[in-house]
């Protein structure tokens, strides 16, 4: 085999390894891309610290709440109200009802998503049950709060926003914390159920 062939083979092998690596690099690239552009309706999982966000003469926005259970997550999970009217620049609190319908202690994590996705960057939360894991004893129920605000930069074409939460069973990922928490207290939610 001549030198030219050897060189071509070497180049091609590098290209193949490079593309295999690239396929895995697509995973972080995709996440960074979605975060930077706000695509995919992903919103920050931490509280806002911006105090200048409140204004007086905001416009009306309708929020629809949607709840999903991931796969076979058995908890009962639904918004207290399906639909609320809010004003931009004003804080509102909404609640979600949740109940552990099983006979074993479970831990859940809720993940939010916003549609249309370009509203996601303008939805800020002062507090949200999605910021931390929720732990419920067998049969225990709770009302989980979310305190949110739309900033005034919300595109004027948006009058209605869907805020969706999917609740995931993360019990298996919490075995260690479990042993510590078990004797101390139950769930760490702020409001006790009113029903």
């Amino acid at each position, binding site marked *: *085999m*001549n030198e*030219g*062939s050897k060189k*071509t*083979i070497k180049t*091609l*092998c590098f*290209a*193949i*390894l*490079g*593309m*295999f690596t*690239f*396929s*895995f690099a*697509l*995973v972080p690239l*995709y*996440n960074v891309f979605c975060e930077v*552009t706000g*695509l*995919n*309706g992903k919103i920050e999982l931490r509280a806002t610290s911006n105090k200048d966000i409140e204004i007086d003469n905001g416009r009306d926005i309708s929020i629809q709440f949607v709840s999903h259970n*991931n*796969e076979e997550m058995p908890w009962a999970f639904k918004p207290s109200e399906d639909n609320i009217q809010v004003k931009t620049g004003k804080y509102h609190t909404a609640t979600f009802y949740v109940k552990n319908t099983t006979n074993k202690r479970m831990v859940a994590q809720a*993940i939010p998503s916003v*549609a249309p*996705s*370009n509203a996601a960057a303008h939805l800020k939360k002062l507090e949200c049950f999605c910021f931390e894991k929720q732990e419920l004893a067998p049969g225990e129920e709770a009302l989980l709060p979310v305190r949110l605000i739309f900033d005034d930069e919300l595109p004027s074409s948006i009058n209605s926003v869907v805020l969706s939460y*999917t609740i*995931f*069973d*993360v019990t298996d990922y919490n075995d260690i914390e479990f042993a510590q928490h078990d004797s101390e207290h139950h769930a760490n939610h702020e409001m006790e159920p009113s029903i």
Partner: protein
Amino acid sequence: MSAVIESHGHDDHHHGPAKGLTRWLYTTNHKDIGSLYLWFSFAMFLIGGAMAMVIRAELFQPGMQIVEPEFYNQMLTLHGLIMVFGAVMPAFVGLANWLVPMMVGAPDMALPRMNNLSFWILPFAFFILLSSLFMEGGAPNFGWTFYAPLSTTYAPPSVTFFIFAVHIMGASSIMGSINVIVTIMNMRAPGMTLMKMPLFVWSWLITAYLLIAVMPVLAGAVTMMLMDIHFGTSFFNAAGGGDPVLFQHIFWFFGHPEVYIMILPAFGIASHIIETFSRKQLFGYASMVWAMASIAILSFVVWAHHMFTVGLPLAAELFFMWATMLIAVPTGVKVFNWVTTMFKGSISYETPMLFAIAFVVLFTIGGFSGLMLAITPADFQYHDTYFVVAHFHYVLVPGSIFSIMAAVYYWIPKWTGNMYDERLGKLHFWLSFIGVNVTFFPQHWIGLAGMPRRVPDYALQFADWNMISSVGAFLFGASQILFMYIVLKTVMGGKKATPQVWEGSRGLEWTVESPAPYHTFTTPPKVN
């Protein structure tokens, strides 16, 4: 002393193929390996075709008659996987093996042992894939696109075998493409510059680069699936922070170049055949090369047109719509060149020419329905309907498959030294042509009327066209038995072919005897 050396040298130069089964097992000869690929591909074509017959038999009437829905899904999945990875791709690799060294005046492929390996791992890959039919939980049932989480969280246990089968197929394709590229880049006869290469060689050079670029991405995608299923990662599992939509992005980043991998060599074949039987030089050689290169490059920036309905932002939908439509320009250039080559030519209609003309016409129809699907707002209506099925079958069956059949009829006199039976060849063409159109044209209409794809049962208003479609499919399927008979008959004997075979054929492969000797161009020819 000198006599001994001479006789030794004599042996080396004129030894033919080894005898018996081990000839095929150990062969490093590009012609043997080409034949192996082609026969393997034909076997897979019949198996995948039999599965299509099961699908069309079930869809012959509304309601469930023949198979369970679970088994129907397995047939659907395996039909797609086998036709793409087992029939079309190996057939093109087989043609490349036979033709590329002869066309560029090289004695063999650059890496003959790897060539042997890249073929012989394929039967194992498909043995693994097909054996999953007999496993607990059945064969893969998630469609050939194997979207997560259907192929991860909800997959049958046999998915692991599917993953390894795909790994092996990918390795085979990658080795095949390395061989093709190294051969073309380094072993051309003196005087054969890149822009003097036959178009089939050009089409395969571009295809091989596409394969090098995207097969590793496919391997990455199935590796991530494997890790999600067995090692607790969450690449595509939302519960662990992953994203199922990411799977679709990665899959189609591979998948769209993949569909051009299955059509670019067909462009090369059609160019040769149309120029031969028009008895004219091909119109626009350079523009053909540039068109193929542009199509290949554009194929990397259009993948999300398969995902218009996943909730892309408007800017992305517009970008992918326009980028997709842009591909119609180089494709239009090619169709224009083929038609212009035929214009005022002294055309004769031998079987390869019939298949090539049908290729141009029917592939163009498939291209037009592709343009319809590219229109984002319209795609929301067409998405996952039979219209999509009609579209991709039009570009793959009378596109890729017809071009492969055309190539077999065109070059088989060179391979076997015998002319095929022209009367039977034409019969095969007309049966296939009618069969393919009766099968797939009505699927446009039932798709536009709203029949979803991948269903074993359907609403009553689709009954008539489905029945007609099934009749067409049975006709097309049966006519491939005739194809097998014609090929076998030609291998056994027939009218002897001249070296040039066709009146208008040109190129290095037509300068050697028919059948082509076991070793050709051991001393490189001179190209002007």
